[in-house]
């Protein structure tokens, strides 16, 4: 590589959804892996095109739910039977039917919190700074109406010139460098 200023990757902007999806497909097919598409709203075709299917969120939520269920009932049981058993209106210490509501609520609570936390963690948030924002048009349009496709520099297949040409070929209205 000749001494140029380092590069995070290349950013191509597209005019409409269809082209973007199509471009994404082809990029992926072409063997690029460190690819990411950007849109102001979710586009399912993109997920398929880039073969994105992260199952970790759902798994985490399941675990969270189970933990909550155990914690919830455990709390009720421990308090009413072990910690300080009291004769409440002649009911048995372990009046399990009365413990169901709390168990249920705690289950939902932990599950939901896990959902949001995993989302944030996996997305690497909070990340107010990101190289892509260095692309002026991206910063101004990605969250409004801009449709972008980015290929990162550390993709093994990445080559400044070839990749730029490749993106242009895909019908990008403009390809720009992403400063790190």
């Amino acid at each position, binding site marked *: 590589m000749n001494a140029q200023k380092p590069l995070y990757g290349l950013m191509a902007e597209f005019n409409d959804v269809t082209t973007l999806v199509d471009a994404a497909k082809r990029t992926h097919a072409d063997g690029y892996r460190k690819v990411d598409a950007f849109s102001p709203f979710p586009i399912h075709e993109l997920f398929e095109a880039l073969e994105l299917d992260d199952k970790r969120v759902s798994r985490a939520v399941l675990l969270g739910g189970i933990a909550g269920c155990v914690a919830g009932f455990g709390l009720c049981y421990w308090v009413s039977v072990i910690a*300080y058993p*009291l*004769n*409440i*209106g*002649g*009911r*048995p210490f372990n*009046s399990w039917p009365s413990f169901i509501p709390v168990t249920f609520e705690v289950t939902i609570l932990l599950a939901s919190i896990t959902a949001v936390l995993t989302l944030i963690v996996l997305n690497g948030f909070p990340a107010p700074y990101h190289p892509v924002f260095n692309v002026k048009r991206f910063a101004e349009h990605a969250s409004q109406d801009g449709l972008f496709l980015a290929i990162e520099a550390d993709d093994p297949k990445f080559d400044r010139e070839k990749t730029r040409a490749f993106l242009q070929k895909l019908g990008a209205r403009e390809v720009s460098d992403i400063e790190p």
Partner: protein
Amino acid sequence: MDLSAIRSRLASAEGRLYWRSLGELTDSAQFREYLHREFPEQASEWNDPKGRREFLKLMSASLALAGVGACTRQPQEQIVPYVRQPEDVVPGRPLFYASAVIHGGYAQPVLVESHLGRPTKIEGNPEHPASLGAADSFTQAEILNLYDPDRAKIVTNRGEVRSWGHFLTAVQSALTAQAPRGGAGLRFLTGAITSPSLAALMAEILRAHPQAKWHQFDPAGRQGQTGDANARPIYHFDRADLVVTLDADFITCGPGSLRYQRDFSTRRRLTDDRKQMNRLYAIESTPTLTGAKADHRLPVRAADVEGIARELSALLGAVPQGEGASVPRPGEPDIAGWVAALARDLQAHRGRSVVVPGDFQPAAVHQIARSMNEALGNVGTTVTYAAQVEAAPTDRHASLAELARAMDAGEVQVLMILGGNPVFSAPVDLKFSEKMAKVGLVAYHSLYVDETAHLSHWNLPAAHALESWNDARAYDGTVTLTQPLIAPMYEGRSPHEVLALFTPQGDRRGMQIVKDYWTAAYSSGAQWTITSPDDEPFANADAFWKRALHDGFVPGTAVTAGGPATPFDAPSSGLDPSRPAPPVTGDQGGLEIIFRPDPTIWDGSYANNGWLQELPKPLTKLTWDTSAWISPRLAEDRGLHNGDVVELRYRGNAAKMPVWIVPGHPPQSVTVFFGYGRTRAGRVGNADETARQFNPYLLRTSDAPWFGSGLEMARTGERYLLVTTQEHHAMEGRVPVRVATLEEYTKEPAVIAHQAHAFPKTLTLYPDHVYDGYKWGMAIDLTSCTGCGACTTACVAENNIPVVGKEQVSRGREMHWIRVDHYFAGDLDNPESYHQPVPCMQCESAPCEVVCPVAATTHSSEGLNDMVYNRCVGTRYCSNNCPYKVRRFNFLEYADWYTTTLEPLRNPDVTVRSRGIMEKCTYCVQRINQARIDAKREERKIRDGEIVTACQATCPADAIVFGDLNDPNSRVTQVKAQQRNYGVLEDLNTRPRTSYLAAIRNPNPELEPARPAGQTEQH
């Protein structure tokens, strides 16, 4: 309200329809008024500047409190030991002293609980024949009077602060001035005096000043009996199978009522082996608790009682001596039949019956009654005519009239008034206060700076009964000693000490006077024959004195046991004692007015007593106000509703009263209760501008103090809010009170059980909780309960229950842990009444506990439904879920933390609850715990009867039984074994530990043919 509608509803109701107030039978009137009552009510608090300032001042504080209230560190407390500790004092354990409080001149024997020298509670003296452990509300509430911040504290003369020394000099100069005239200008005015030593002092004075006169007045005292020596009846209801009252309320009125009530209920009590009861006929005017208990009640005008009595006596062939003008008797034929049946029943019970004339009926009725008792051979068995217990008994209204005349004629220079507040309570026709102005020196000795004090020159603070020595006699003549529980908190002195100032010996201490009198009496044995209760006689006078003090009374002084009349050897008490009662003036037409002392504040002397003010009055459950009772019929005719203010005009005098419609009230009579309308009672008792007019004394005349005709009643169109603790008087088929006649019950005991559903235990999901060890429970006998309300007062005193005031009661926030519900049944004009004390039921499957989010109410190992005040956050969920609504909530800061004089009153064994906390009956858990600890320390089990709850201890009818349900031999277990035992709302499966014994009536089959079974069914 539309009473005809009620009648039709009652008529249409099959079986016995229970109802409680007319306001409920046709709610409309009440409710329209209520619904139109404008919001916002509490805004007043906001407008009142004080409230607002307080608000701004405390706002920040309270917010801070809200933040850190719970984490603040406990402040350091001081601890102050004795310098020299009396050896019998054990800090942490109360001492009990036998003593007495005086009511209407008579002694009510008591035991006073004292914690480190401060009396905290009054209970009856179990040893004493006049109490047997019971105490009425007045007696118990005396403890609150003791600590009343409004008590008279200092000697004053014309408003200037003076000392007793000053008064003594004043007295002496007055006496020397009187000496030449033999004390002609010297007058004493007292209530009834039964205290021998006090009578002796009075006699001593009258001997020294032969011309001096002693007048007696007591607005509520019974019509003075003619002076003949052995005219005073003492009844023995425990020997009477048939009781007939002639307008007599022996259950709640009169010095003997406690013992009478106990005897009556004993004879009435049903057990599995004893299946018979006494029968009570009540011929009465104003509905009373006695009438409410009656198996047959005949409501008549007070004036007609004499006529009926004569008729009855005629049927019995009894000829009363002194046959007076025959009083016309009511024409209604059914009465004749009723009386005839009664006569037959009486004949059938010769020697086992008793006829009881009312205290407020004229002497003639008493003579007739006596003749009947003689004719029936009751004298000696069910009634004894014994010596007078009051010194120099006289007709008190006449006596006061004489004094008034003398004052008016300027014959009085020195007037010494010992209590009684005549300015407020004297009959209006005497114009007492005006005439008092003509007296040169008026000295007034009283517990309060009241209306009379205001018009007297010298105000002498009285020492409270618990601060002084005394020796009044009980209804049966037993001399009952009063010993001070605490040194006088103010400058108060006892009547003895005041009268002593007028004697030649001059200033003496109360103890000296009383003790000297009795040690002398013991040694001389002249007037009194004092015998030791045990076999071996007393070692000496001192031993006698010690023992008498310990027991609280002087043995062998009961007139029934041959004790003498109270000696009074003086030339004259000022009045010819044999002067007959003035005749009741003949029928003036119009309505009849009946005067009665108020059921809870008596003649007005208890007006400043919050406990008694808030104690619901019998039958109406009204609190904090008086009312004129009228019959539903009269209300119908005049279109009156509860709370309508009427103007009463009677013999040229007028007063206003709010009316209350009372079923069973004689149609053509109006009953007014005097005692309210105080202007200088104190912070609690002072009536506001409106309520001041509601004062029957303004109508009462000395010649007919108890009833008279010629009353005119006109509605003013005004309304007055009367607050009752019970809006609703119908059972709506829920049978909280189960009833059967003796006949029905003996024939088929299951009749009680069949009156409501029972809950099949198989229906419950959970296994029963096992209670080994103690298992506390209570049974309340509705056949015995008379609804007197003493239990409520006892509970208030024992458990530091606050007084909340009229406004809060009107919002339904009264705090009584045990309330006495009352139900009417049957005929609107002459209904049956039932009383039901309702404490916490201590349910085994308590609905309240399950819903408490913080476990502030839980079940103890002995099955108590514990209420943990310090844990309670006050969600009120438990109360919502309590089907008996026995829980009470501190909606505001009800506990008085600021009146310092009230602090010593509190029971140290019970937490004082603060704002925002739920509270309720605990079965007196403090007593249970003490007993358990004592038993453990002595390594034994708690004995049956060792734990006595406050309500049980004081119940004159002995209707409440408490004990261990796991002990097959305990009294409570055996009582609950009866087939008339039932639990209220059992069908909810709350499994109440408190159960009731059904009310069994014993009607005369001739007058009340047995209803077909099933008619008593309530659903």
